[in-house]
């Protein structure tokens, strides 16, 4: 496999502008004749599908929900970054670029990140024009808030529902193109196979989830905007149906998978209440501005009522270990701190997997009214879920898997290692390196969909001589047969265990051995545990019903089957990367006081894996060459 990132030459700051004006254009008369399949209609997919249709391409878009408006993107709360410098606080394209590179712990591609920062401003303009009701100040101008990893205020937001409003903007743009007849929308459809003809991706096999019918769809190019894979851990903050299927099946057809071990864990989520837990809910990190994190000093106190534990018997461990950052230590540090005290047996709440986030001090200092004004809706949400009143007893929080930086490898044009297959949004690996900064995923999804892919896909479409095949081509028959065989096999097992039970078991292995902190022995243990679990899955799974109807267990089984394979690659990547960087923390590689140590000599590359059967992937390295920025050590002391 040859990986050519196709980064344009010339100075960093002018690469994109030049590339954009030099990239091949498709003759307007030909655009109607060219068709593009967009799988996924979250922020990335909906914005891409709408924009491509506006340009004149014939677009087919797919999502598995009943409506494109329900994609996981809808749940993003905090905001979206853009280098507008509306606050006059010194923001610039360069500063956003640098913050993102540094936030990613120097494991992302300079040229891609710079482009992201360059187009960020236009995203806000576009969204405002669509009617996205961003927060405004009294003069009627756009308001900003600050977010982690930046010293400027560049985050735009719509209350606590920024993702919802941005997605509805993109969804409405998409519906407009559907009404115009330029986009054919296939809701409740799931892509199961990619169709590759002579090395070019030319279509998909999709299952109509209502009738169960398998359908063949051909196109001149295919785009995947199918989101992240955090649900491989079973419990995460992602929507329940988010999955790895589309990108995993593309990987099995030849698309390189990059940096799967870069996963992000969010420190402030509501802890697990019991074995029935189905997902985890994120609580805004802003709570750490006024809440103090603590656990009992002595493990024996962990079952006592928190207010019964004397001040002198409490360990405010973040304040103790990071005196200057205190409770506002960065995400990864705060998460690992919680894990450590729980590992020591000092965690609170069910299962001892929680730490207190206590507002008592803030309430006595500022009054309950002020706290209510700042966080009222979060306290309500907390009460709805836990039944506890956080004005009276401290909240309990615990870290949870939240976002995945890894994904399919793409070049500068967002094309994967399969010709014609493009990947956008969280599904690709491109911009966040080993760690994503808050409010940057929404920015990247919309950058890819509105302002990057619509240009760069032209490089393929205008240059490719590979014709669009008819759906009667043998490659379609073969892909359809493979999809059918897998469905039939899942239905034929009729064993004893449910899909959910396997998913939960797989998630536990990953969370324990490949979660917040990883080490060689643990990863090897996971790599020994996954193949037998997968084998058992294929022998003892119980999926009832048929394939010719709406069958949610069957859909779920297919997704977990892919997680079972993908999990192994995730651990393999984590095992090979013998350094700590961003969201990937290897216990062997830390300083005496527990700080991550990167190894730029050996690991300043993108790890792109080529599929060779489960557990038999080949590593390819794309070296990360920094022309503009000097790699430095992040410090939070």
């Amino acid at each position, binding site marked *: 496999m040859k990986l050519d990132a196709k980064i344009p030459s010339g100075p960093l700051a002018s690469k994109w502008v030049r590339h954009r004006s030099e990239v091949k254009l498709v003759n307007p008369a030909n655009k109607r004749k060219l068709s593009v399949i967009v799988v996924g209609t979250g922020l990335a997919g909906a914005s891409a599908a709408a924009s491509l249709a506006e340009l004149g391409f014939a677009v087919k878009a797919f999502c598995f929900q009943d409506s494109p408006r329900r994609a996981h993107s809808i749940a993003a709360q905090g905001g979206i970054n853009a280098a507008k410098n509306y606050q006059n606080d010194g923001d610039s394209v360069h500063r956003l670029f640098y913050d993102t590179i540094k936030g990613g712990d120097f494991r992302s591609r300079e040229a891609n990140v710079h482009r992201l920062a360059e187009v960020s401003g236009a995203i806000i303009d576009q969204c405002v024009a669509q009617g996205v009701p961003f927060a405004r100040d009294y003069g009627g101008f756009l308001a900003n808030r600050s977010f982690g990893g930046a010293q400027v205020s560049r985050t735009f937001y*719509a209350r606590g529902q920024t993702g919802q409003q941005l997605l509805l903007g993109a969804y409405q*743009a998409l519906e407009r193109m559907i009404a115009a007849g330029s986009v054919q929308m296939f809701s409740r459809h799931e892509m199961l196979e990619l169709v590759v003809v002579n090395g070019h991706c030319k279509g998909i096999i999709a299952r109509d989830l209502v009738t169960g019918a398998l359908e063949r769809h051909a196109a001149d190019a295919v785009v995947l905007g199918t989101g992240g894979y955090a649900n491989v851990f079973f419990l995460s903050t992602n929507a329940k149906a988010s999955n790895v299927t589309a990108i995993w099946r593309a990987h099995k057809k030849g698309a390189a998978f990059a940096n799967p071990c870069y996963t992000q864990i969010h420190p402030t989520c509501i802890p697990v209440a*019991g074995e029935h837990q189905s997902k985890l809910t994120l609580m805004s990190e802003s709570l750490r501005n006024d809440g103090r994190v603590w656990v009992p000093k002595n493990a024996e106190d962990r079952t006592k009522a928190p207010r019964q534990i004397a001040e002198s018997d409490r360990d405010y461990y973040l304040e103790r270990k990071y005196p200057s950052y205190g409770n506002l230590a960065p995400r990864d540090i705060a998460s690992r701190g919680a894990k450590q005290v729980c590992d020591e047996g000092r965690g609170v709440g069910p299962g001892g997997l929680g730490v207190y986030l206590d507002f008592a001090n803030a309430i006595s200092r500022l009054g309950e009214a002020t706290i209510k004004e700042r966080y009222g809706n979060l306290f309500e949400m907390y009460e709805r879920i836990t039944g506890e009143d956080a004005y009276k007893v401290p909240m309990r929080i615990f870290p949870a898997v939240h976002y995945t930086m890894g994904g399919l490898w793409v070049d500068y044009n967002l094309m994967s290692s399969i010709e014609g297959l493009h990947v956008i949004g969280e599904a690709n690996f491109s911009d966040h390196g080993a760690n994503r900064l808050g409010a940057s995923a929404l920015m990247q999804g919309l950058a890819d969909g509105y302002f990057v892919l619509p240009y760069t896909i032209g490089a393929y479409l205008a240059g490719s001589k590979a014709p669009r095949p008819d759906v009667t081509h043998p490659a379609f028959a073969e892909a359809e047969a493979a999809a059918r065989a897998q469905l039939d096999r899942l239905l034929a097992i009729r064993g004893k265990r449910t899909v959910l039970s396997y998913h939960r078991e797989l998630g536990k292995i990953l969370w324990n051995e490949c979660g917040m902190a990883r080490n060689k022995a643990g990863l090897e243990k996971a790599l020994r545990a996954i193949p037998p679990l997968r084998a058992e899955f294929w022998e003892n799974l119980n999926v009832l019903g048929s394939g010719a109807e709406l069958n949610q267990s069957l859909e779920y089984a297919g997704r977990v089957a892919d997680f079972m394979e993908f999990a192994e690659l995730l651990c393999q990547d984590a095992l090979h990367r013998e350094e700590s960087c961003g969201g990937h923390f290897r216990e062997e590689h830390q300083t005496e006081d527990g700080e991550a140590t990167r190894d730029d000599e050996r690991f300043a590359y993108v790890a792109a894996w080529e599929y060779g059967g489960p557990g038999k992937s080949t590593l390819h390295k794309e070296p990360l060459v920094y022309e503009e920025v000097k790699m430095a050590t992040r410090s939070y002391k």
Partner: protein
Amino acid sequence: MKLTLKVWRQTSAKSRGKLVEYAAPDVSPDMSFLEMLDVVNEGLIAKGEEPIAFDHDCREGICGACSLMIDGEAHGPENLTTTCQLHMRKFNDGDTITIEPFRARAFPVIKDLVVDRAPFDRIIAAGGYVSVSTGSAPDGNAIPIPKDDAETAMDAAQCIGCGACVAACKNASAALFVSAKIAHLATLPQGRVEREARALSMLAQADHEGFGGCTNTNACEAACPKGISVSFIAQANREYLRAVVKKA
């Protein structure tokens, strides 16, 4: 907690459905309503019975996928709460709970508790957008918008498109859903350019889909998990009249 469930089971759009009784013997008050259904489903599969189908995804009250009538109330007994955010501590040991799909002529049942809400997408496609192609937008701060207007637009734009308003309405009217979008866009300068055409075509599409008329019972507002106000229906009516007058 021990509960008894009466759940609507229907194998397909064409078949007839009926309520089937299930025991839920081991429910923890910390479970969400959907987690309770997960547990019931695990038990059904173990017994070789097909699990109950229901729509859900985010389980955070924002995607609008979940959609149950619980004891006759859309999204159940708790105000301002979607089914996925409803927790079992709101129920009592020994309760019998009846669970049915959102019912409306325009929302046919697909299976069990899953209904087809595609008409909502078609109503948006009829005009629930600003016609601005990618790339043609002016600077985000070019048009200042009074803070109050931005807040009002946001109040309306919060709609999650779940359909509870339709399910709660005796006429199965989509007035609250349609009005929220008309009001959201008409409140902002960006949306005013197309306000007349939008109001006419969205309301026409809602009629065409088979949603009923609004008779101001306000049941929709009471059922809406986001608390969207019926005042937007009045605003949309004004938009409609304005459009009719202008057209005449």
